[in-house]
């Protein structure tokens, strides 16, 4: 446990507060955006972008990934890679299969 001194921790708390506030604001933003008159493509894009921002905030600060050791980053990058394969290929398959059937 590499505990820093108190000043360090105080500044951490400030960061946490700010993250918390941004998350709350972004939640409101994403809800309001869903009432806008957007095409479904735009709506999906916007909602996913906001969710990704929120997700990164949580991951980077609450889960302190931003200052995490390289090892963990590597594990997560590997996971992210496979996650995207998982997300992408059923879609690709769908398009491909729709072509003929």
């Amino acid at each position: 446990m590499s505990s820093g001194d108190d000043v360090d921790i105080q500044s951490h708390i400030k960061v946490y507060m700010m993250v918390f506030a941004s998350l709350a604001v972004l939640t409101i933003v994403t809800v309001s955006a869903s009432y806008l008159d957007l095409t479904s493509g735009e709506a999906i894009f916007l909602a996913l972008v906001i969710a990704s921002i929120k997700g990164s905030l949580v991951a980077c600060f609450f889960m302190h990934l931003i200052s995490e050791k390289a090892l963990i980053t590597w594990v997560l990058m590997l996971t992210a890679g496979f996650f995207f394969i998982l997300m992408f290929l059923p879609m690709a398959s769908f398009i491909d299969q729709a072509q003929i059937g």
Partner: protein
Amino acid sequence: MNAHSHREESFFRKYIWSTDHKIIGLQYGLTALLFLSVGFFLMMVMRWQLAYPETPIPFVGSFFGEDGILLPEIYNSLGAMHGTIMIFLGVVPLAVGAFGNYLVPLQIGAPDMAFPKLNAASYWSYFIGGVIMMGSFFSEEGAARSGWTSYPPLADIEVGQTIWLIGMVFLITSSLLGSMNIITTIVQLRAPGLTWRRLPFFVWTQLVTSFLLVLAFPPLEAAAVLQLMDRVAGTSFFLPSGLVISGEALAVSGGGSPLLWQHLFWFLAHPEVYVLILPAMGIVSEVIANNTRKPLWGYNSLVFSVIFLGFMSFVVWAHHMFLTGMGTAMSSFFQITTMIISIPSVIILSALFISLWGASIRFNTPMLFALAFLPMFGIGGLTGLPLGIAASDIYLHDTYYVIGHFHYVVAPGTIFALFAGIYYWYPKITGRRMNERLGQLHFWPSLLFMNGVFMPMFIQGLAGVSRRLWDGGLEYAHAAGVLQWNEFMSISAWLLGISQIPFIINIFFSLKRGEKVDRNPWEATTLEWVAPSPPLPHINFETLPEVHREAYEYSVPGRNRDFTPQTEPKKG
């Protein structure tokens, strides 16, 4: 955790709810061997029906029906459970649970696994999963009968599947816990001086295998949850609209797709087959390095190849689905990746072959099994290639050719490697060597009959005989020319069973009567041989080993012995 290592532990603490990785490894090993026997037993029963369709099964017939004839639905049950038991309850627990647990901490010079309690939990989760699977045979509905692949809609409507799914959830949980533990152990608990480049190859294979389990199993867990919902909550994740089952319109909302299951299933199941083979390759490499008395040829390329293999195994899954109506883009992509993934296998095999050149080969039982692994896996791997080429898969898909392909890799491949491992590390576990003569008596017939069972499958497959046929193809005209092989294969399978008797005798006999040996009977270099045989409870080593050299310093020129343990300090 180790505070009580000096205290006397109660029997229960010591052998049942143990947190010592060695005891857990043995628990895994014995349970898995038991399940292997069960899986094999089911298959021997099925082979009776295939050889002599619709004649009563001798001895055990009364379990399977009033007149002792195996009914088609029971045949399907046994087939599905044979696959499930062999893979999820037999080979994976033996290769990862038993070998991984027992050897990884020893080979990296650690006192135990990183999370001993989790380790015990992982075993018990496996145990419960096994009990549930076994219990399904005695349940009202009977065991699952939709193949180990459990394709919906069949699996959504057939009886017995619910228990299978619940059992799978336990097995998946067990594998997840076990593999996180192994990764953490390897990364965190390596002895001082044991750098990545000094890691025994076996540890590398366990590391990659565990990553495959951690990342590939969860999608199957997700799929299992969805299928469970389909069966229990009436959803239709895998059921499209408008199905008519036995003349009745199926009362579901529809809108799902059976292909979704296939994608999620094979997203696991292809990495899973590498889970079956990689530890086997690791074991074989250890045994070969030791018994050729020379370093593994091309250590770096071996390591690179397994990592690459592990990585690629996530992007080939749809080669099991070529005939599901795939377009050109998808099929080309998966053919390319499938061909790419065959290259590292070729590299690994080549490196192991080349290691033989210039060696001084000792032909003991572990080495025989390890050597037999090479050509047998070779046959299995090579026959994977025409399946990976979509054009030939059009004809070969779901025929006995596929059955032949994967049995060559798992049975005379993985199972042989596991046998090699058992013979090789038995002295470490018990302090006694297994009997050589019985070992040879086990090896030669096994080799012969393995080929007797599986070689004719290629012939039947080329003739176009489908798999999972209750009557072995009797009904079909195109099978007429190859039906005579059924009896041949069945007899080989039963003889194969008989050939295991020397092995079982050997295991128990050598426990008491085997030749007593010291801690390093094979004159090996890796760390496990520095520990006493058997290693000390909970702490393994008398003092923490320190590593000074690479894993396989055999026959280094200018040394007075032909092996130099990893712990031996470098001079000046």
